[in-house]
Structure formats: C-alpha cells, structure tokens
C-alpha cells in the first residue's frame, strides 16, 4: 500500500500533470483565471489577497527547502523558531483566505452560478492540505528541520527515479496524508482553474507596452524574389 501511495502515485500525478497541462494549454479558450471579481468585489480583497500571498510564500518555502536543505539543517535554534513562526503566519493567512473565499462562494448566488464541481473539489483538497500543514507545523516541530532531513531525500529519490519510501512510511499519518495531498494537488492542476498560475504574466515586465501584430509582411509580398509561403508571420 505504501509503495502504491508513495512510490507509484507521485509518478502517476506528475505524468498526468504534464500530459494534462499540454492538453489544457492547447484548448486555449478555456485557459483563464476565471476571476469572479466582476460579480462580487467587496469580500474578495480580504480573502483573495491573504490566500494568494499565503500559498505563494508557503509553496516557495517548500521549494527552497527542497532545493537547499542544508540552509535549514545548519540553521541555529533562534533562526528556526522565528522562521517557523513567520511561515506559520503565512499558512494561517492562506487558510483564512481560503475559508473566506469558500464562504464568499457559497453565500453568493451569482458566484455559485459560475462555480464548477472542480472549483469545489479543489477548494476542499486545499482546505484539507492547509489544515494538515498547519497541524503538522504546530504539533510536529520543528518541521523545517525534519523536512530537510527526512522528506527532501524522499522527494529527491522520486525525482531520480529511484523511490526510497522507507523514510516516509515511518512518518506520522498526518505527514503521509500531506504528501498524498500534495501529489493529488499536482494531479488536479490541469483539470482545474489552478492552471492560471502556470501562465503568471511575468513576461509583462519586460515587454513594451504597445503590441502591434502584422498579419502578413507586405514588403515581402511586394518583393518578387520571395515566395509567399516562406514569409509566414512568426507567431503563427
């Protein structure tokens, strides 16, 4: 059972994520953040902002721990305590934001009309995941230490295609559920509105403000030496 959940399921999740994401990206029209701010804006500020800021900081923390575990294993006691307190605050901010978002969704008829089953599913998955994460952070201290020491080797073993599940099978149930939840989250990304973070518009920072698209290059058409078929616009 452990082999299935911690050895096989991560691969299923990642493969489904990649294939699903490519499929989803190709259906360009359905690819959107599906914002509901246009239908209700007052309650959104105190829910969307804490949720997004919280989840982004927490996810970044997990990634940094995964990439540079030595930063945490070598950190001193004071540093660990303040680090964990700060991340716990962001975790609480994320779960509070999520709960506000869910209350907003279920209370507002307009938003319920633009709610899909996947929206509700992913919100409950995230709620459980956040709840477990916070419970782990409080009850199983100090997470940043044993995450770097125990979980990172397991996650890295998955990436090197040599899953070593002995460490994770010995972990408390809450941690095991948190791991399964994480891969379930990855699996669900292409089938939910979560896809929008994959197209976070960072390219906006460097692009010029105005965009002009030319459908065909008239200069090239006028040039009799160039056949039309070689002058297709680059974006097509």
């Amino acid at each position, binding site marked *: 059972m452990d082999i299935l959940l911690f050895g096989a399921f991560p691969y299923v999740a990642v493969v489904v994520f990649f294939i699903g994401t490519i499929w989803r990206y190709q259906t*360009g029209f359905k690819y959107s953040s599906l914002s509901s*701010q246009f239908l209700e804006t007052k309650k959104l500020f105190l829910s969307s902002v804490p949720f*997004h800021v919280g989840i982004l900081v927490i996810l970044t923390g997990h990634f940094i721990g995964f990439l540079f575990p030595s930063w945490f294993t070598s950190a001193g006691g004071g540093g660990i305590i303040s680090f964990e307190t700060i991340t716990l605050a962001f975790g609480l901010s994320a779960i509070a934001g999520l709960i506000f978002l869910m209350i907003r969704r279920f209370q507002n008829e307009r938003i319920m009309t633009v709610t899909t089953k996947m929206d509700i599913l992913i919100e409950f998955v995230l709620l459980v995941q956040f709840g477990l994460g916070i419970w782990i952070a409080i009850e199983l201290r100090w997470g940043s230490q044993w995450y770097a020491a125990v979980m990172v080797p397991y996650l890295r073993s998955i990436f090197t295609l040599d899953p070593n599940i002995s460490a994770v099978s010995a972990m408390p149930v809450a941690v095991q559920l948190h791991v399964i939840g994480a891969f379930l989250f990855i699996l669900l990304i292409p089938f939910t509105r979560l896809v929008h973070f994959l197209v976070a*518009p960072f390219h906006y920072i460097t692009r010029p403000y105005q*965009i002009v698209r030319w459908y*065909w290059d008239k200069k090239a058409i006028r040039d009799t030496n160039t056949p039309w078929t070689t002058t297709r616009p680059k974006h097509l």
Partner: protein
Amino acid sequence: MDIRSQMSMVFHLDKCIGCHTCTVACKNIWTDREGAEYMWWNNVETKPGTGYPTKWEDQEIYKGGWEKHSSGNIALKGAGKRKGLLNIFYNPALPTIDDYYEPFTYKYLDLIESPQQDVQPVARPVSLITGKPIDIKMGPNWDDDLSGTPDFARKDPNLANLSAAEQEAMFQLERMAFFYLPRICNHCLNPACVASCPSGAIYKRGEDGVVLIDQSVCRGWRMCVTACPYKKTYYNWSTGKSEKCLLCFPRIEVGEAPACMHSCVGRIRYLGVMLYDADKIEQVASSNEKDLIKNQIDMYLDPHDPEVIAAAKANGIADSTLRAAQNSPIYKFVKEWKIALPLHAEFRTLPNLFYVPPMLPVMAMVGEQKGDSPKLHSVAKNWDDKWLYDTSLDEIFGTIDNMRFPLKYMANLFGAGDEKLLAEKLKKLMAIRIYRRHITVGDISAEKSAAALANVNLTADEAEAIYKMTSLPKFNERFVIPAAHREQALEMIEATEEVKGNTGFGFTEPPVRGL
C-alpha cells in the same frame, strides 16, 4: 517616419436621433450570448447624463486612461506593469456588474400559462446571471432623454468644473436641452487596454489599426477593463475572458461597413482610412493638455503629399489603401474642414473616433421676452409666460455665446477643456447653416452669408462640400473601405489547400467556460 494606416471614424452628432438602431444591430450580431448580455459594444448615451457604465468619465472612480507625471512621461492611471502585477489578486479599480447593470429578462411564460384567476398575471423579472427573481435597479439606457433629472443628468462628471449657477441655468425647464452621444471602441493609437494587458492578449492590427483581444491568450486578469477610460472593454463573467468592439473586422475585410454604421438610420457615421506617423505616438500622447488635440490632428498625414505617398509605399501600404486614404471622409472632416474633435482627448489614448459637435444646444437661444416684444407671435398675448426659442440669425454668432449649454460643458467633452477650440468648430457649423439658409430659404442676404463664411475662413465651395457630405452623402462616400487583400492574408496564415472543405479559418473553439 513609420507610416501606418488606421481605420478611423466620424460621428456627426447633429444627425443622431438617438434611435439605438446601431446598438441593436451590434447586440444581435455580437453580444447576444451568456456572459455578454450586459455588454453594449455600441451604446448611445444622453448628454448630460451619467452614461454607461454609470459615470464612466470620472477617472477618479474608474482610474482609466493615461496620466502625465511631473517628469513629462505618461503612465497608466490604474494599471501598468507595477500596479497591474501588484494588484493581480485583487484589482481595486475594477468596475463590477452593478456599475453597469444586472442583466435581466422576464418570465413571459407565466403570462401564458397562468391559471384563470381574479387578477392579471405578472411577468416577474429574473436575473440573467442567477436565474432568480430580482428587483431591477438599473437597465440599459435608463438615462435616455432624462436631461435635468437629479439621478442622471445632474451627476454627469462633465459638470464638475461648472459653477452651481451655471448648472442651475442649464437645467431650467425652459432652457433644458440634451443630445445623444453614440459610442463604440475608439481603436486608439495609444490604447490603454493594450498597454495594461499582463498576458499580452490585446493587440493593434498593423494593417488597419483595429484593436482586438486574442481570446485564446486572454487569461482574465481584467486590467484592460480598468485601463480603458471609455470603458469599452468588457469582462465576460461566464467565459472568464474579456471582450470588446472589433469594428466588425470580418465585415471590413470584405469591404462592408461595420453593422452599427451600416444600420445607422440618421446616417451619422463615417468610416475611412487615416495615415499617421507611428514614430510620433508617444511624443504626441505626452503633449501638454492644451496641445493634445492639435498635436494629434497634426499627426495624421496628407495622403496627397508625394513624400507621404512614397514613404507609405516604402512601408508596404497597398495602393488600394492609399487611394482609400485620399478619398477618406474622415480626412476631410478632421483635417481639411477641421470640424470634428475626439472625445475626451485628455485621457491621452489618441482615439480614432471623432465627433462633429452638435449644434442643438447652440442653435436656439431662449429668453424671457417682454409682453410686447415684436419677436413674439400675436398668439403669445394669451400666454402666461413669454419664453421664446429664438432661432433667428440676426446676430451671426450670437447664439453661440448664449447657447443653452455653457460652452465649458461642451469643451469638457470634446475639447479637453478648450472652449475656444469648440467655439471655432461651432462657428463653422453655424456659418454653413447661414450659407445654406441664404441659398434655400433666401431670407439671409448674400453679403451676410459671405461675411459668416469669411469669418470662419471657409469658401463657398468648402461650405457646399461640407453640406453635401453632411446631408447628402452616398453610401460609398460615407464608408471608404480599402480592400483588405484577404486572399493574400489567408495564404500567409493558412496553407489554403490544407483546410479545403473545412468550415473556416482561425478560431474554431466553442466559447465555453473552462474547468
């Protein structure tokens, strides 16, 4: 010099009768769908009035357009790289559905299927979003013809710098006037929507300057809705994508006029090509407020100038487009005759929709006459009050100084606050009326007509041409649309032999909301 061609428009406001045929034509073709019910890519507003969405001109509320900073550079007021990305989880300046109105229909079937009863059955209004019964608070064009009303006309943002006395005078029952302001997307030269889009989904077409939203790239970040100061980009709450007026480009490409223009009953709309120098966009958009309109109009180039023609050809502009530019009614109204002005140039987007300002609020003075005034008809001795609409032209431009709307109000709309500029255009229009009245009615002397024309630097030939283009234009004079050379364009985009027998080109996905 980087010469480009731009589809531009003129709306002649004196001819607009406010029939909303344009609006209905547009609605039937483009926005009669779920999520788009509330959108009116073309709408006709009554001025003074709050418009659609309510008070859209007040950028302190909506944060649209560009603003000039003390450094001399312009930046988006409510969006842009820093503001847009920082506010991506929550856009504080996004209008919501209630700023437009909640779309509704009525349960008409209840009228037919009602059982026999003592009272008349009622068709209750239901929301087109939730399907549940609602109390309608606002609807499309609910300010129609309601000049003077406290909820609409008196909240017009253009009244902001008018004194209380001026506003009171404007809305006196006997003096009250209004005119219609039809609006579509301006397909600006410096579009704020394009600049605000984090995804880069909005673009200006190089060939004809139409501004479009790429539906497969739009991710629903909603910044364009904030950035457009004319509020002509709309968020489709159902599909999670933004949409806007596309100047009926599938029609333009085959030489047809856009639906709103084609269907216009008053024939107020003109469409044609303007050539402009794209290198000057940023510089012109950053002009001082008082020079904005002048600099924008100077930016459009003379399509008869051999140098311009050579530069345009070098830039790949087709001969057919050049010919269209030479016959463009827009060029005549804006550059030759100089009687058309952009709406709210102070938003700095360099809009390509120009308006010939209306004479209606100018034409007739109204004043209380003495009981024995010779101007009053003999019947007037029976009247309690002796108000008179004076349409006589005894003093040539007297009515402009005593117009029923303060000139300041009109200048806020069309002159970026410049009253002199507006008076100049109105005088021209008035001079042409005097000239035509001399010819058709004959109660104005030739000397007086000539003096009026001379006063505004118009020749009789020009006056005649303006009159003809205003009153008697043929379809092909109103709409001068160059060939789009779609046959070439298609071969650039698709290998035609590969899609032979298919239904069409380009976007063929059904517009369905994502998961």
